[in-house]
């Protein structure tokens, strides 16, 4: 069974404009790795060249930041929703 990942607007360019992607995996790390093997362009936006999750990319399992769970080892089930939440800056101009 697959888990849902919600893709924010700025990254949809790299997911063929899909806002939700269903991926197999039992941890957040597995989900992201499976997702970026399909959507390869997404990889460099989420991970550094050394394969570390970028610091400005926030990943949530349901409403919790994985930095306060088990980071990429955080277990997921098909009932969970994983969100990628980017920094956005717009507002004045």
């Amino acid at each position, binding site marked *: 069974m697959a888990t849902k990942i919600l893709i924010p607007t700025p990254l949809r360019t790299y997911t063929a404009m899909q806002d939700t992607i269903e991926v197999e995996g039992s941890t957040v790390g597995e989900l992201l790795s499976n997702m970026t093997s399909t959507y390869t362009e997404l990889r460099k936006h989420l991970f550094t060249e050394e394969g570390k999750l970028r610091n400005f990319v926030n990943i949530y399992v349901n409403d919790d930041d994985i930095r306060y769970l088990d980071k990429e080892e955080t277990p997921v089930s098909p009932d969970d929703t994983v969100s990628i939440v980017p920094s*956005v800056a*717009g507002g004045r101009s």
Partner: protein
Amino acid sequence: MRNDAIERPTSLSNDEVARYSRHLIMPEVGMAGQLKLRTARALCIGAGGLGSPVALYLAAAGVGRIGIADFDVVDYSNLQRQIIHGTPDVGRSKLESAKSRLNALNPEVEVVMHEMALSSENALHLFADYDMVIDGTDNFPTRYLVNDACVMSGKPNVYGSIFRFEGQASVFATRGGPCYRCMFPEPPPPGLVPSCAEGGVLGVLPGIVGTIQATEAIKLILGEGEPLIGRVLLVDALKMRFRELKVRQDPDCPVCGTQPTVTELIDYEQFCGITPTVTDEAASPESTDDVTVRELKSRLDRQDSFLLLDVREPQEFEICRIPGSVLIPLNELPARLSEIEGRDDMIVHCKSGVRSGKAVKLLHEAGYGQARNLKGGILAWIDEIDTSLPKY
């Protein structure tokens, strides 16, 4: 130096009672709450998309002093969303325009104009005169600056941010609550996240997010309800879905953590990876090899054989185009290189030169060594060659 505090009134005039009657009859506001609003001092950073509804609703609610920091003039392209300004205000300073609108809406409130770009030198001094700061800026360096200055001066940071159809809102830097850096410890590298000017924004979205910020500001003043502290609200206007995520205070936060390492305001441009020499939109690593619009015009007039490649989005191509150009959006370029096979002599353009700079780099790496960037993009073409085309 202006007197910092607002004189504490003990009652409202008959006119004020009439104006605020819908507040006064609610137990959550009442006379005491309305007097709190009247003595409150809120600072809006930016009089744009978010600042417009924020300032309008705070003025309507009777917030005693509303400061606005901005340095821009009203442009036609602002009016689709910056509802504090009107068509007759185009070309006028945003501060002047906002002040006259707010004065007309509610002459009881004091509007203070701060014509300045917020900086590490002036932020703490400016914030000292206010009880809270409402962040309606449009770039990462200013957002980190607003946040850090709020933490250091102990003022809540009423945060809102928008992109296309999506928005975020929260209340940061309250006592015991997380700050913006707890949620976003590091900014993305420049160029990775497009701005509203590049990516567009649904005009009504800042209305949604800005009114949420105004609501939170008013709740903080009243001390009522549950503010968005430790939570970020995500708004997706396209699906019309509101979601909420937890934001925890990070004990290792360099600004609000237990052992802060950033104890004074820093160089935020540098922190965000912006070096002074490339802040100009048109600047790109290939700038010495850029083609000017005049050079392009004479090559087109000579009917030279070369490819004019437009890497903007189809929606932009529909607004205006340079005759003879071929459209391949930047993000599709890697997959569509076969369409330009053998066309080595190439001039690449976008709106202002940033995306085409990236495209040229990509083309050089793919073996198209002669690809050159059009300096200033189609905007320069419109300014210097064909003024009949619409600018966007």
